[in-house]
């Protein structure tokens, strides 16, 4: 360990003091990032009246069980069809749909752009990148028209599909593919691998960790959608957890509990994928 330290210092050329300062800054950053989450978790264990009188709470209270029990038995909406399990199901369908489709589509489009001889490759790429300038919010009205004309209103597809037009994944995969040595393709070609085998046997296995990262990011995008689901669905059956928070009231104990429940699935997903995620970001 000592030798490791000194090695580290030899490389970075830093004293023990400046290491301590660096760590202090990192810890401060960590506290800053964690504070809101801790605040929500602590607040979710207080009664609604405590929260309304005293604001959000830093310390745990004694109403945890009641709050979470209320959330789980919560029913709302016209004929009580909005339930936590229903909302969770919707959120999962939408987030997984967005994640899977975004990953697959951006993977395939980047594959085509990098490995196929397309005419106007550069133009196609930049055309795809331009979609970054038009987030869903900026094209609500047109997209709404399209969805209506497709007869998709009040369906999961209506919530999922418009969220797919995100070039980020395509860009990410393209950059990754471009780092693959061209001899790899050539060797595979000589080994008798056509485009499909090359995709399946070489590119996919070498891109799994990148795909994991894109999957997580796209899952978050799908999970956190708020405005668009609200616009495109009038049906209580399509309520998501994120929308449910508004329904139950944010400044209430059960509301805080619902917030905590809402952030759990993305959190666990990240936990599962974290090794891949960091690996793919650091390479």
């Amino acid at each position, binding site marked *: 360990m000592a030798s490791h330290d000194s090695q580290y210092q030899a490389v970075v050329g830093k004293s023990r003091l400046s290491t301590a300062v660096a760590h202090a800054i990192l810890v401060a950053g960590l506290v800053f990032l964690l504070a809101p989450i801790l605040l929500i978790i602590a607040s979710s264990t207080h009664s609604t009246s405590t929260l309304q009188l005293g604001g959000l709470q830093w310390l745990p209270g004694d109403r945890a069980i009641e709050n979470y029990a209320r959330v789980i038995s919560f029913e709302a909406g016209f004929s009580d069809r909005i339930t936590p399990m229903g909302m969770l199901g919707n959120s999962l369908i939408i987030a997984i749909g967005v994640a899977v489709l975004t990953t697959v589509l951006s993977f395939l489009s980047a594959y085509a752009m990098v490995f196929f001889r397309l005419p106007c490759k550069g133009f196609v790429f930049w055309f795809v990148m331009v979609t970054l300038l038009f987030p869903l919010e900026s094209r609500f009205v047109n997209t709404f028209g399209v969805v209506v004309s497709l007869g998709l209103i009040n369906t999961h597809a209506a919530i999922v599909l418009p969220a797919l037009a995100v070039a980020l994944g395509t860009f990410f995969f393209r950059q990754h593919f471009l780092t693959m*040595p061209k*001899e*790899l393709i*050539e*060797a*595979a*070609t*000589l*080994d*008798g*691998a*056509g485009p499909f*085998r090359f995709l399946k*046997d*070489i590119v996919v*296995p*070498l891109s799994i960790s990148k795909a994991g990262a894109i999957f997580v990011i796209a899952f978050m995008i799908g999970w956190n959608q708020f405005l668009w689901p609200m616009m495109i669905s009038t049906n209580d059956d399509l309520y998501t957890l994120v929308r449910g928070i508004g329904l139950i009231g944010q400044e209430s104990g059960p509301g805080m509990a619902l917030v905590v429940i809402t952030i759990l699935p993305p959190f666990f997903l990240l936990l599962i994928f974290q090794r891949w995620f960091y690996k793919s970001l650091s390479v």
Partner: protein
Amino acid sequence: MSKVQLSNVTKTYPNGAEAVRGVDMEVESGEFIVFVGPSGCGKSTLLRMVAGLESVTDGQIQIDDRLINDVSPADRDVAMVFQNYALYPHMTVHGNMSYGLKNRGMPKQEINAKVVEAAKMLKIEDFLDRQPNQLSGGQRQRVAMGRAIVREPKVFLFDEPLSNLDAKLRVQMRIEIKRLQRRMNVTSIYVTHDQTEAMTLADRLAVINEGKIEQMGAPIELYNNPATLFVASFIGSPQINLLPAMFDGQYLSSGDLKLEGFVDLPQSKELVLGIRPDELRLSDDGQFPMRVDIVEQHGSDNLIYGAILGAEQESDEETEFCFKTSQDMLPELESNLTLGFDVDRALVFHKDTGERLR
């Protein structure tokens, strides 16, 4: 056992670069051909056209009398070994070697037998379950060769396969490649710019310059009888000594030096005299006074570099010669030696065309 035939093969890249300008070549069955030449001369391009990785702009490539210009790389039955190995990083050694066979639909048992046999031949049978990143450079190169061998192709293609290895390993692998090729008797084309590799591996050597074959023949033939100044200066290590000169009917003169014994050379044309370092000898009545600049001791022999005094100078630099001699010859630096040579063994070239005159 397959013949490869190139007829007037040309390659112009889309950006206009003329990489290969009309190459004719016949490679006999089982022959080991080496392409050698300076960087950018088109060696790789030519090789890659045989592999099918580059299209042929003009001309014909045939393997066993079958025109393959438009045959896909996979169907040409050639295997290639790349400089950077190009192993599939996520597959084991076994996976790397069997991939090509699997794609061709060979039964599993047969694949296994072939992989194990090739691995034994290459002494990598202990690594079959490892991934490439757990292997040394030399081991990776063996796997790359194994991948080529198991395919039992008609033609092996090598593009500078040893360039990423350290000097010692390179020599070792060089010998092994030669041995393997002898044993398997597969027609091979090998690209390198290492001229020791070229000399030692080739049955025939093709010296390529600016997209054309400058000369082709057995290595020793090219060494002894280079057709051009380019070939003479490219083949042979240390490089041949070159001296700018003119012929006046009686003497071949260079600056203040007058060399006797040359006849039948064109007069008042710029010529170049070429003498191999091992053709020089120490001699009191020799033709070249040399001032010793550097002595390199290589073990069995010494290389003595020095300026030839009085010789015509190309630009500002003094004309330097290299003199290859025995271990015990250790002259003082800055001392003067007198070197002689055998006129019959000296080469004379046209300076402008590079053509050899004698």
